């Protein structure tokens, strides 16, 4: 039977598909919409503020006068000359590096201990993770009490053992150490809190690395006559080096860009002896209203963070290739 032309067109229409019907089978379309949230997030919360910071840093913008008048590198020149900035730059590096050295050593010890089998292992693991799970400001407030000038439990303990508060005590005749009121002690306190905070993450990353090592290699090293330390330094450490450098680089970035610990503990004091760049940028730019100077200070973080980020990506890539 012959179909009419109209009928044929109708059949044809019914079998063609609307443009949108298979839209979700289209990889280009799907890829775009899946990536979109991340791209929007990065542009809105990283890209735009970054460009704003660069712009602000070469203008004279303040909270009171938001007009952007170009002043060249004048902000940078002025900041560099202030003793506060120089101290902040030094402290930022000092705190970060000292804290990371301690974290690297302690995390190794902790990870090796946690890799052993012992009773109550899970509870030990959980307790060790707590500092990382606690909001940084709450944890630091806890430390603020520990370091309190009058009620510090550390003082009590030292007094109890006769190490503090008697005329011939090691830590001096005064009843209190006044942790946050003395230059060296305040700096040490800030570093200690940074260590306390970064240690769990580093330890857990190292633990993951240690447990991923083929146990045959450790057995072989034992049969080959290696002692515990030789196995640790010549077999385990080199094998977890890529993952360890990731942990360290993470620690560097977190500590370097952190302002909460110093803010809660000391507000940069005594005087400006525990000032760090992020905190100083905040004091200048937000607290003091000088947006342009704050932006200029913050930008000093950029070169170092950039180097660290590049290193991280390279390490990640290297361990991928293997």
């Amino acid at each position: 039977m012959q179909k009419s032309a109209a009928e044929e067109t109708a059949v044809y229409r019914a079998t063609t598909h609307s443009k949108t019907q298979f839209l979700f089978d289209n990889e280009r379309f799907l890829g775009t919409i899946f990536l979109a949230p991340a791209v929007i997030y990065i542009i809105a919360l990283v890209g735009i503020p970054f460009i704003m910071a660069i712009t602000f840093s070469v203008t004279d913008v303040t909270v009171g006068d938001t007009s952007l008048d170009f002043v060249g590198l004048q902000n940078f020149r002025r900041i560099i000359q202030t003793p506060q900035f120089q101290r902040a730059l030094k402290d930022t590096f000092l705190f970060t590096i000292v804290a990371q050295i301690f974290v690297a050593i302690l995390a190794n010890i902790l990870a090796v201990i946690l890799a052993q089998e012992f009773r109550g292992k899970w509870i030990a693991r959980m307790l060790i993770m707590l500092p990382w799970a606690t909001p940084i400001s709450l944890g630091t407030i806890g430390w603020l009490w520990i370091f309190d000038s009058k009620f510090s439990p550390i003082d009590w303990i030292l007094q109890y053992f006769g190490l503090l508060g008697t005329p011939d005590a090691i830590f001096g005749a005064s009843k209190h150490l006044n942790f946050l009121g003395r230059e060296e002690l305040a700096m040490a306190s800030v570093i200690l809190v940074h260590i306390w905070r970064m240690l769990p993450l580093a330890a857990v990353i190292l633990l993951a690395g240690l447990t991923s090592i083929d146990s045959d290699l450790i057995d072989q090293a034992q049969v080959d006559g290696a002692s515990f330390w030789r196995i640790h330094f010549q077999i385990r450490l080199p094998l977890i080096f890529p993952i360890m450098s990731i942990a360290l680089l993470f620690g560097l970035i977190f500590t370097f860009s952190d302002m909460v610990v110093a803010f809660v503990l000391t507000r940069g004091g005594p005087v400006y002896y525990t000032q760090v760049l992020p905190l100083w940028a905040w004091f200048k730019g937000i607290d003091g209203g000088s947006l342009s100077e704050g932006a200029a200070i913050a930008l000093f973080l950029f070169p170092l963070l950039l180097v660290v980020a590049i290193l991280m990506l390279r390490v990640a890539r290297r361990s991928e290739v293997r």
Partner: protein
Amino acid sequence: MAVVEVKGLKKHFGNVKAVNGVDLSIQKGELLVILGPSGCGKTTLMRMIAGLERPTAGDILIGDQVVTHLPPRARKIAMVFQSYALYPHMSIFDNIAFPLKARREPKDAIRQKVEWASSILGIQHLLDRKPRQLSGGERQRVALARALVKEPDVMLLDEPLSNLDAKLRASARDELQRFQRQLGITTIFVTHDQIEAMGLGDRIAVMYAGQVRQIGTPQEIYHEPADTFVATFLGSPPMNLFERNDCLVGFRPENFLPPGVLQPEDKVTAFPFHVGRVEYLGSDRLIYGTIEGAAEQNKTISKLPSTITVDIEPDKVYEFVVQAKDLKFFDKNTGKRIEPQPLD
């Protein structure tokens, strides 16, 4: 002189008796193969000898010294793992030198010994490479060189050939034996592969369920099995077993032959063999069937070399014969070998 002695060794993991009372004595220069199916405890036994596993009970002596509670590094042993366990971040030179460095030997001595070991195994040209740049066979040689360089009292090999492909395995077996004989190193070789065991071992210890079932030369193990496990574990196809007169009778498929093949003066026992299926395998013919009468459900196999050209057809009954000396008898309950019984 016994280099390694194991006395009443046990290892229990909770309720699992991985090794349950093993006695062994390995002579100087001997290559002893520990053969058994997976899970029989052979690797655990080896790991205890190496010191990687602490025995639940029993003693281990290496070179007349009790080492039961000494750590691996205090024992004069070397070990090659199935995975070869080469240190991936070290060059081949450093891999082989590692046991020497752990012993704090002087640099010159280390260099000399590494060169000696690598020349024996023909891997001098690989010393600068990393393990991941090597093939499976090369890695195996490196692992052997690393074991050799220690000049150990005893070398422990845990299935070192099973990661090689079939072709390479044959030549590696040959090479391993040659170099073991040449250097006279006392060696314990763990495997689940009976061909490897038969081909390599001066003696074989057959393990099952945490115990040594039999220990002896390959010939003894094959021709005079101590129990039904050893009889059926070795040989391919395994020994035929069936019940007759309250005991188990066994004979190897290659000894179950059609009449006329054997000399007339041979003392034989005849069985009516109901042929089910015939398989041509080129060099051999496998004939599957049942022996009429005593063992209806027992499949029996005859293996005829291609030199025997007698026509065998399915679904027919033939008189097959076994020489009296090839008939083995086992206790029905314990499975242990017993004296020959009269068959009627």
